[in-house]
């Protein structure tokens, strides 16, 4: 398998890698320690491995790492930490949108992609935006509320409290 060097920027940190041509972005990210990118199916069916690639939501299992050469990847950890969470992450926790949590990083990133494009989405737009991310625990109700809550907080500007 031919290996050629690539440069991958993950959550602002640069990685220079030599990779097999068939290595998926999902497996490379996990190998690098970004285990918040979850492996749920490796077929693009579940959305657990979703990341932002140059700001666009992708299933990292369907992207070859080579395709990400020179591009920027953001994972859930890149949005915030336990001490300094992103308002979307806080909203998920506050709204009861997190149960087992395995789908949550992907859901958070799908929400980020949505709210970047549509700061005040309708319920239909929220459901549509999350339709590629499966959740088996919540029934989606509280996730949709979390997206709404995050949107409100972000529009209010402080990102911490609802207006």
């Amino acid at each position, binding site marked *: 398998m031919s290996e050629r060097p690539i440069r991958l920027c993950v959550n602002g940190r640069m990685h220079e890698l030599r990779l097999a041509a068939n290595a998926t972005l999902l497996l490379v990210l*996990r190998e690098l320690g970004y*285990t*918040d*990118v*979850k*492996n*749920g*199916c*490796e*077929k693009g*069916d*579940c959305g*657990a491995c979703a990341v932002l690639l140059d700001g666009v939501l992708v299933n990292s299992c369907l992207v070859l790492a080579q395709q990400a050469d020179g591009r920027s990847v953001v*994972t*859930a*950890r890149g*949005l*915030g*930490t*336990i001490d300094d*969470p*992103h308002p*979307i*992450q*806080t909203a*998920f*926790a*506050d*709204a*009861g*949108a*997190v*149960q*087992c*949590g*395995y*789908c*949550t*990083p992907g859901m*958070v990133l799908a929400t980020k992609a949505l709210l970047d494009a549509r700061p005040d989405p309708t319920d239909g737009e*929220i*459901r*549509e935006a*999350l*339709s590629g*991310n*499966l*959740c*088996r*625990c*919540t*029934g*989606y*109700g*509280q*996730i*949709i509320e979390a997206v709404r809550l995050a949107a409100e907080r972000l529009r209010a500007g402080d990102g911490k409290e609802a207006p």
Partner: protein
Amino acid sequence: MTIEPKPLPEYHLPPLRQVGRPLRRIDALGKAVGATVYAADVSMTDMLHAKVFRSPVPSARIVRLDVSKARALPGVTCVLTGHDVPEAKLATDMPGQTGREQRTGSDAPVLAADIVRFCGEPIALIAAETLEIAERALERIELDLDPLPGVFDPHAALAPNAPRVYGEDNVVARWTIRKGDLAFGMSRADLVVERTYRVPFVEHAYLEPEAGTAWVDDQGVVNIRVATQVVEHFRTVARALGLPENRVRVRGTMVGGGFGSKEDVTVEIFLALLARATHRPVKLVYTREESFLATAKRHPFTITHRTGVTADGRITAARIEMLADAGAYPYLTPYVLLYATGMAAGPYRVDHLHVDSVAAATNQPFTSAFRGFGGPQAAFAYESQMDEIAKALGIDPLTVRRINYLRTGDTTGTGQEIRSAAWLEETATRAIAALGGRTPDGPRQRIGRGFASYFQSYGRITWFHDTSRAWVGVEQDGSVVIRCGVPDIGAGQSNSLCQIAAEVLGVPLDRTTIYTTDSAVTPLAGTSTATRQLYMSGNAVLQAAQVVRQSLLMEAAAAWGVEPGRIDLFDGFAVVSGEPTRRIPLAELARRCAATGRALSHLAQFNAPFTDGIDPETGQGDIWPDFTFGAQAVELAVDPETGEIDLLKSAACHDVGRAINPVAVRGQVVGGSHQGLGYALMEEYAVAHGVARTPTLAEYLIPTSCDYPDTAAIVLESGTGIGPFGAKGIGEPALTPAAPAVANAVADALGVRIHDLPITPEKVLAALDRRRTETGAER
């Protein structure tokens, strides 16, 4: 007709400070920022990667298994076959519990050496330096199989000349109920309604495939970090490997969904064998396809109800037959069948009842626990049957149920007395009322409404002598630590325990920390199954915290020279009641306790009620500690041209006894409903002659964010449960009523019933055709 909610009886819940509040779950933010470690995220230095070689066919004799080419591949460290571990058996039963219903000799071999009995059965294990090498080694294993006739239908499996899956016959379990005098009861009936209902295999489809890592430590203890609902499988692993139980440690992680399937052993024994053979850490993560292929499914059932009723709607007698597909190995089938049997007649008084249940072994995927544990299958049948009775009598469905609902003090089909509140009419009327005004029929939509009531146990079978332990302590700065072996499978198990301890010790939730799911250092709490953790471990934490509280009160009483009864713990302080200025910070009190030698920690053991078991001939006796009651109602639109069903409204009402965390309870209700709606309308793990036809999430469809509206959750709190603060359980019950509610709504819309799940457009069109043929009506 408008349904008014039935008024609730007068009741009073004591005011609480932490319990009952919609607090942010302690595990939520860590998961949202991606900081939570799941089993597949655990890695170790010098770690090997494992793969499992599995049978490609459902029934065959192994003629030749040659792993030499795999062993010779550079980078392959170890290949194990059944011949290397001939004694390794997987006891497919509940560890750490007394009582055993499994037939001798029915344990699964860890690795099949002679016969394979289901497609996907493990045959060999590989450990290699990289995952890629392990995958390449799989392809180098040579296997010659001599096909054996299989049996792929539980009915056929019971025929005298059927191929034997194992043992003397294919009967995995039987249960019988003989209550009252069936012939007498039937003789009092004005009408007998007989119908047969069927439900399919269903896959748990949690987002996290099974995973774990194992290593042998410097004491020779096999350590396994794994996604499991049952850390007590350290006993199962020890037995399979012939090790003392104190030489296996299972440490769980946060589990990415369980729903019953991580109740069985998954990767643990494979990992232990490979770690012992290689003396290196070994990691095994299932692919999605392997997760589907290698783990349990919900049991398919065929259930026939023959119900005698009077013209005014009273049930006089019922005869119920159940046949379940156990698949290739028993796993928890005997208990699932017992649950279905014990709940077969539903939450109704039936004085004259016969139930005959049997589970048969086949060469299909094995079946075991799945949220509800036989309850959802039973409920689909008994609640469909109640509507069929109502229709046959020309009485409305609520009236028929109202006449027959169990009440507190009544007995179930097994003669077990209902001791807690049985708010059946209260929950049903609220669920129905919550649907609001009925949507009118349209040119291409026929509107239907239906509801279903249910009862579902919480807590383990009482003759298993279930126990849980928890340790609670206060640190010298007044912060609280809980140690409890509870596996958290995402339902908020650990959070509830923290809220309970916070309540008793008078601290805010964020002053608590909990350590969980480690068989070596956290007190054993039993399984996160059977809707038992809040009830069992909640009571254990409550007891332990109360002992610690008493210590703190005694110390404060001594300091102030007042009676301990006058002291309260509140917001991190000990205070004298009525004298808010007299208060001591918990930290100071903790240091005083340290100085006087008063214990500030306690290990408590909570024992469930123990019983002797049911009479094997009559099935009479107590099976469970208590029951949760509730109902769900739905409104849907059916397109008679395409058969498509559009769910319009859904509402569920459950008496949870006491909501320890209302946000978490709502999550259980809405999420459980969603799984139940999937069961009703789309989910079927299709199997053809033992081979899965829906092997990935692209074929096996589960509900997405766009499929169904949210279920409105109406939570009642009777305070009569036997969990902490009067709590009942809601994890499993939340799923149970959804499917029969949908089936009843579809029957309401079409005027014709679909008797088998899932209710697909094809079945709707076939049902409409059937009705046209029967009535000569136009579509």
